[in-house]
């Protein structure tokens, strides 16, 4: 066990000599896909609650498809499927994009987390008490200013508990990245297992790392909730 840790601690945590691996890679995947998914989801969530069907339905289709299929299949499609199509290979830009494993993985993860986040934010926007909006109208706030100053801040705060859940689920989901040759925590665990055959220890360390990350995220979100959600009253 000690030899396992001594030999692999560096790979597990940040690097195996030439590329980013392990914990650092997992965190990078998580942060990048959550950040991009978040940015993308804001305008999409606003479209999702729009009065006009023609704006709503494309977003609804997007979330329906991406929430109804497993992330693993989405990753396989992005990594193995798309790159095999002749149309993609003939376009230099597309070809260069999909050639890189990291791009494919981040694309799949971003689209997936975006679809769940859109639904969460849409639900949060819908749950804003209408009284707040009426008051805003009384003050003359309309259009995009209404969104920017009232609806988005309020919705984001209300969505915090559900969004924290989504971030943790995304952390767990990144463990599937090794199938697209990305060296994350699980890949290093498999390497350690293949070299030393100490299965329980190798995967146990991986599990421990994920547990620490999850608990850290839970703690961080609890602090955020205390800061931003306490206006909703006691007994949360």
């Amino acid at each position: 066990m000690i030899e396992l840790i001594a030999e692999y601690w560096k790979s597990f945590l940040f690097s195996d000599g030439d590329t980013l691996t392990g914990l650092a890679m997992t965190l990078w995947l998580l942060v990048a896909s959550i950040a991009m998914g978040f940015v993308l989801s804001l305008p999409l969530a606003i479209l999702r609650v729009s009065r006009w069907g023609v704006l709503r339905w494309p977003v609804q289709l997007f979330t329906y498809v991406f929430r109804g299929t497993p992330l693993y299949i989405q990753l396989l499609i992005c990594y193995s499927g798309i790159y095999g199509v002749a149309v993609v290979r003939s376009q230099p830009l597309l070809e260069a994009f999909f050639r890189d494993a990291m791009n494919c993985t981040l694309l799949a993860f971003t689209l997936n987390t975006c679809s769940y986040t859109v639904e969460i934010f849409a639900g949060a926007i819908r749950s804003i008490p209408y009284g707040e909006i009426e008051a805003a109208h009384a003050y003359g706030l309309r259009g995009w200013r209404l969104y920017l100053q009232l609806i988005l801040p309020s919705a984001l705060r209300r969505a915090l508990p559900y969004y924290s859940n989504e971030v943790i689920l995304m952390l767990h989901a990144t463990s599937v990245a090794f199938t697209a040759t990305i060296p994350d925590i699980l890949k290093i665990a498999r390497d350690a297992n293949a070299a030393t055959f100490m299965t329980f220890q190798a995967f146990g360390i991986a599990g421990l790392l994920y547990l620490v990350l999850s608990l850290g995220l839970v703690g961080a979100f609890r602090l955020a909730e205390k800061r931003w959600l306490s206006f909703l009253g006691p007994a949360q």
Partner: protein
Amino acid sequence: MNIKWLTLPALALLCCTTGASAKEWKELRFGVDLSYPPFESSTADGGVQGFGVDLGNAICAELKLTCVWVSSDFDGLIPGLKAGKFDAVESSMTVTDARKKQIDFTDRLFAGPTAIVTRKDSGLLPTIESLRGKTIGYMQGTIQETYAKAKLGPGGVKLRAYQNQDQVYADLVNGRLDASIQDKLQAQMSFLKSPQGADFQNSEGISDPLVPSEIAIGIRKDDEELKGMLNAAIKALHVKGIYAQIQQKNFGDLDLYNN
């Protein structure tokens, strides 16, 4: 409780405990990774085929046992063997010191050097200088991975690990990989013979202590009885000419034993 009720389970327990001491060989379970034609692969109807499979079946026939082939991922073979999922591993597994620490091996089954596959017009040689900056792929858990990480990675070659050999070839064909490193004959007889592999070529065998070429059947340590049985069977195959027959059927005039 009626005493009569106790006799039946007691008898059953007695039978089981006495039965456990003497090993009655009826079947031989081989663990195998079926992504390695022409050595081990699956048929369209879910059966198994290949040079290694033929040898395994011949050994079973010699020992008058039924062969059972249990499919597994390559890096699950040694844990599976140790756990008792199967009795032996026949999957073109190379004998290395690291593996000898975990399991035991029979005498040589055949020899399999390692080589690198590249595109015909790429001008790439199987050297670190030539491959620097390029991407090379391999199957996870193999000796080729160990070699790549120890020698090629530090030399500036980009490394990519895949779950099985098919995925390596898939990415080699679509251009994600510039080269792939695996068993020389495996590449020769499966990928390079297929229409997908027409534009690719094999390199010379790499001789390096990290990629030995001795391939044998893996068995649990202290399983002396099975080791003796298998070694005797392998010897008998050579003596009776069955080995030469199987070799001829799969590879024609190539000599795999003394490669």
